[in-house]
């Protein structure tokens, strides 16, 4: 049985990934999340869908490095891990962050530092096993800082640079690191944003992630059109870019 771990399992995208992986084959699935009630509800759903799968839940503390190390050690002690998806995130209010650096700190912690700590903890074990796929959810917001959400973007940019480093480190090994960059996705996280109707669905993004992980793709834009859009945005000269209200 494949051993799959999802950190931040109650995120809408993560939940869809879990469903897709279990449709492929009954796996041993470990779900980490902060909210014990919500993750229990998710685990129950997955068990009813796939009675042959083995599903565990772990209550996670996303900003305690020692707790993270201990959780990860306990998970890999069972069996080496085949796939890890690190999916937790929180979309802060940009203006709120600008006015209150405590909000800013929280956003950087949850979207940047915490995913890295989890990834680093799993990376150690994967390196020793010489095997595994580690997927991190970054964002198109990490591709270029924009005034409308650069705090979130900075944290996601950090995830991207980190993934790059990890890919370099594991280039010669059997470990694959996949950086996912979803565009705006219709999930509870973006429910307050205008234009949710035209966003990609969590299920569509999840399908890209699952395929990207299967292929060991270095960078997955989801949906793929964001690769082109972000290429353009990254290459806009500052004189033009600074005039845009984005």
């Amino acid at each position, binding site marked *: 049985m494949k051993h799959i771990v999802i950190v931040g399992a109650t995120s809408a995208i993560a939940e869809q990934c879990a469903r897709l992986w279990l449709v492929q084959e009954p796996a041993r699935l470990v779900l980490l999340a902060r909210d014990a009630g919500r993750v229990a*509800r998710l685990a129950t*759903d997955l068990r*009813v*869908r796939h009675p042959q799968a083995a599903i565990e839940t772990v209550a996670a503390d996303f900003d305690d490095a020692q707790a993270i190390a201990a959780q990860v050690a306990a998970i890999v002690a069972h069996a080496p891990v085949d796939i890890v998806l690190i999916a937790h995130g929180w979309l802060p209010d940009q203006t709120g962050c600008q006015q209150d650096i405590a909000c800013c700190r929280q956003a950087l912690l949850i979207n940047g530092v915490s995913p890295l700590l989890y990834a680093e903890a799993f990376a150690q074990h994967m390196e020793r096993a010489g095997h595994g796929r580690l997927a991190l959810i970054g964002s198109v917001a990490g591709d270029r800082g924009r005034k409308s959400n650069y705090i979130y973007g900075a944290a996601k940019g950090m995830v991207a640079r980190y993934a790059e480093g990890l890919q370099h480190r594991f280039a010669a090994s059997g470990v694959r690191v996949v950086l996912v960059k979803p565009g705006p996705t219709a999930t*509870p996280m973006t*429910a307050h944003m205008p234009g949710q109707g035209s966003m990609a669905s969590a299920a569509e993004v999840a399908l890209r992630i699952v395929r990207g992980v299967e292929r060991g793709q270095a960078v997955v834009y989801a949906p793929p059109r964001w690769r082109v859009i972000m290429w353009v945005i990254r290459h806009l000269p500052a004189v033009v870019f600074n005039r845009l209200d984005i």
Partner: protein
Amino acid sequence: MKGVYSWGRLALEPHRVIDLHDPAELAAQLEHNRPGIAYGLGRSYGDACLAPGDTLWRTPGLGRLIAFDAQTGVLHCEAGVTLREIQRLFMPRGWMLPVTPGTQWVTVGGAIANDVHGKNHHRFGSFGDHVRALRLLRTDGQQIECGPRQEPGWFAATLGGIGLTGLIVSASLQLRRIDSPWLTVQTLPYASLEEFFALSDASEMDWEHTVSWIDCFSRGGRGIFMRANPAPAGLAAPAPGREKRVPWTPPLSLVNRWSLPAFNLAYYALQRRHVGRERQVAHEPFSCPLDQVQEWNRLYGPHGFYQYQSVVPRRDAQAALAAMLDAIARSGEGSFLAVLKTFGERRSLGMLGFPQPGVTLALDFPNRGARTHRLFASLDAIVREAGGKLYLAKDARMPRALFEAGYPELNGFQSWRDHGMRSSMSRRLMGD
């Protein structure tokens, strides 16, 4: 505020849209945003799922399964789970929903609130006949567990109650055992309504599914009758079909009086090929042929379309149907998707449920304004004369008098209503 359509795409009107995800937060989300109505996948054709200016509580986020008993086949799930998901998960395990409507893109909550039916009504009744229990949340925070035996009053009001008794949060559904995901299908042409009735009568004993397509442009009522039974075990699982999508809304209806006769002729010719031999068809394409083309409702163009689905008691059905077909022919309008089917003896358990003994005819008409409404007025008169009624899940325009005549339990229903729940339909037909 966000513009939302129902399936008929008649008008894009602004709503305050609230996505429901977490059962723990529902009570607050209802109480703070009432009045409004629950909105699942928006497959109601008319205005049962719309409430312009008010709230739409979107339910697909309530999409978790809660329990399945592999001994009894009872599935407990949240109300936003789609029938398609249930079928796709459980058919490989030898279980399926006993009743599915013409599309699987509906939520469990929507299926209950409209007490939907399928092609096997004469054998399995309607969706509500297989609901063991449901949980209702009122906008004042009250929670009610009800079912056919527990709190039957609440159950009867909620089943077919188009969302007006509160939010359906979860339900327990009785699935049925199946040996195979396939059906054995026979296709038989008929040349007149008499032949249709003879075929229906001859088939209901021995065939689980019966349905027919009738050609509105033919004099006398020629059509194609299909009947099906579960196939024996042993065939491989069907490959899921490729999904197509209508990519955008054409500037005018592609279903119109020039294209319709051609469509109907082509459909008739295509179906004729199947006459005289038995085919194996998977459940999904047999029960829900239109599910293979996503957003087919866009074909009707920017003005949308109406569906007119009536049921008339069997006694005068043949004369009523003949009169309706005649009225359609005289109006110069026409319908491509004309579905004719007999219901069995089981009346819906819901106070406002649709299925009742008789014959049901469903017709789609592009919205051509006053012309279309003139035709509806003459169809209404025939339905009322025959003692029939129209299906709320499809309706966007019936006059209040026809509603009151067709739904005698309306007065009883009113006392079960949640007054934080209201829709365009409830305002139109019940005054609030």
